[in-house]
């Protein structure tokens, strides 16, 4: 997922920039409070070096967090510990009396920045952990338990929760968007290939097939092979791109089978969607395509085909029946013994891989029916 890393980088970058902005704004607030309250501090002289440290750390983290390579646990831990240290120093500098009177700590508001940073970096759990640690420090430093003290901690906890959650959601949707973009690019590329192949290779193959068909013998065999490849190639380039999505996602089998309906092919199915895992659906569609292909290859033009899709709770059954020439049982056996019968094998193989069963019934003059049943219960 190299590309996805690069694009979700932009989201991360803007989040870290937001944290830096927050930290700077909080620093301004802290400075104003220190200037305002310095008169009541127990040890006012020490307030300035701590404020300098706060400012220095703000500048450092602004640069450090901007670099993805440095956003690692040591930095996060240092951020949390230094902020906790600044806060803890308030106990001595501001003094217990002033704190009890409701004066803020030296890290007020500023102390939320590392909590948010943890939430952005590690999601809800990290965010909550940092919020609890910071909240505990805050309560210990203040050393008195009134509602205002709790409210600050609870707000911080909620902020961590919300930010962690939002980051998760944003990342998931970002990934979905990236997947969609990839899919679209793949589809466009496939369409371009399809056009090219259609204009060149397919035409030639079709021509070979048509001219060679009348020649018989080895040329006839070549023509047959060319025809097979032409059909396969056509299926490949015109194939829907539904299989490009997640393998485990479910798709409506009918979106794959409906396109086969034509003047000679009737597709009967339930009105609703026939949902199957996309891998299974595309295998079934390929098997149906092979069966339809077989009809066009071996039967007279204009032979009608009926495809029936049945959706049951336990299994999906797809039948492909034609009213063509049919296959004599001895020919079927003979072909099988010669290792030919590619179609039957390919259908059996595909459906067999899905744990399904295939029944092929045929008689000369009565057409052929291929019935494929794929169980919904996963093996």
């Amino acid at each position: 997922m190299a590309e996805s890393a690069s694009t979700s980088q932009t989201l991360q970058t803007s989040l870290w920039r937001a944290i830096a902005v927050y930290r700077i704004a909080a620093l301004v607030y802290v400075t104003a409070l220190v200037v305002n309250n310095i008169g009541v501090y127990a040890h006012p002289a020490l307030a300035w070096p701590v404020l300098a440290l706060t400012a220095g750390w703000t500048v450092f983290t602004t640069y450090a967090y901007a670099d993805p390579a440095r956003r690692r646990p040591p930095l996060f831990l240092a951020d949390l510990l230094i902020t906790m240290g600044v806060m803890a120093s308030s106990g001595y500098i501001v003094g217990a009396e002033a704190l009890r009177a409701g004066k803020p700590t030296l890290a007020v508001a500023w102390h939320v920045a590392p909590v948010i940073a943890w939430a952005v970096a590690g999601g809800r759990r990290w965010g909550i952990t940092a919020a609890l640690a910071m909240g505990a420090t805050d309560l210990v430093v203040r050393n008195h338990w009134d509602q205002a003290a709790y409210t600050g901690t609870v707000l911080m906890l909620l902020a961590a929760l919300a930010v962690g959650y939002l980051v998760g959601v944003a990342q998931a949707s970002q990934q979905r968007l990236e997947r969609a973009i990839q899919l679209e690019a793949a589809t466009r590329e496939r369409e371009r290939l399809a056009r090219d192949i259609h204009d060149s290779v397919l035409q030639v193959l079709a021509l070979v097939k048509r001219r060679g068909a009348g020649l018989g013998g080895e040329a006839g065999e070549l023509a047959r092979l060319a025809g097979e490849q032409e059909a396969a190639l056509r299926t490949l380039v015109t194939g829907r791109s539904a299989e490009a999505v997640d393998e485990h996602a479910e798709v409506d089998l009918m979106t794959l089978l409906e396109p086969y309906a034509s003047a000679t092919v009737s597709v009967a199915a339930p009105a609703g969607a026939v949902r199957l895992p996309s891998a299974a659906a595309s295998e079934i569609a390929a098997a149906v395509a092979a069966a339809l292909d077989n009809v066009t290859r071996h039967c007279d033009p204009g032979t009608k085909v009926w495809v029936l899709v049945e959706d049951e709770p336990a299994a999906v059954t797809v039948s492909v029946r034609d009213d063509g020439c049919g296959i004599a049982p001895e020919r079927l056996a003979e072909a099988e013994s010669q290792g030919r019968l590619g179609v039957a094998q390919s259908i059996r193989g595909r459906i067999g891989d899905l744990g399904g069963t295939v029944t092929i019934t045929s008689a000369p003059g009565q057409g052929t029916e291929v019935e494929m049943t794929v169980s919904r219960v996963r093996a």
Partner: protein
Amino acid sequence: MVVDDHPMWRDGVARDLAAAGYEVVATVGEGQQAVRIAPAARPQVVVLDLQLPDISGVEVISGLLAALPGVRVLMLSASGEQQDVLDAVKAGATGYLLKSSGQAEFLDAVARTAAGDPVFTPGLAGLVLGEFRRLATEPAGEDPGTPKLTERETEVLRLVAKGLSYRQIAERLVLSHRTVQNHVQNTLGKLQLHNRVELTRYAIEQGLD
């Protein structure tokens, strides 16, 4: 009576019907108009395009059946709107044909509809089959009022969906042609009855009796 919003199609169908010896009592381009004039025109068979500009096919069928109980509706449609076809059948249409089917097929379908026999395409059989399966798997499936197909009916419907003619089905299942027809008709009857029961139940629940 021919109901279709496409004038050329409408006239063509009317001409074909007249040539085949049917009396065309009315040609209409809109659903509401069809329902309005049906009592006066008294058609036996209505050839109905499922997509009309004003009201839905289902509304036309219910309107026609209310105005003229016993009228038979053969619907025509271009392919693709499966749910509409299914709804129309539930509302009481007894036949369905694709617009792309040939003239002979069409006249045969009209004749069968007039005789009271259902006209099924394989596609419609697939839809009906799917609908019964859906009803059976619904949470309310245990409800004794939910219609179920007998094994024979399912077998017959499956063969219709696979494109076998009634004659071929009769041969394969060693039944008479008439019996096959009855089975198909019963499946439709069950679905339409269920639809009426559901509608009534809905009306009572909503307090609109």
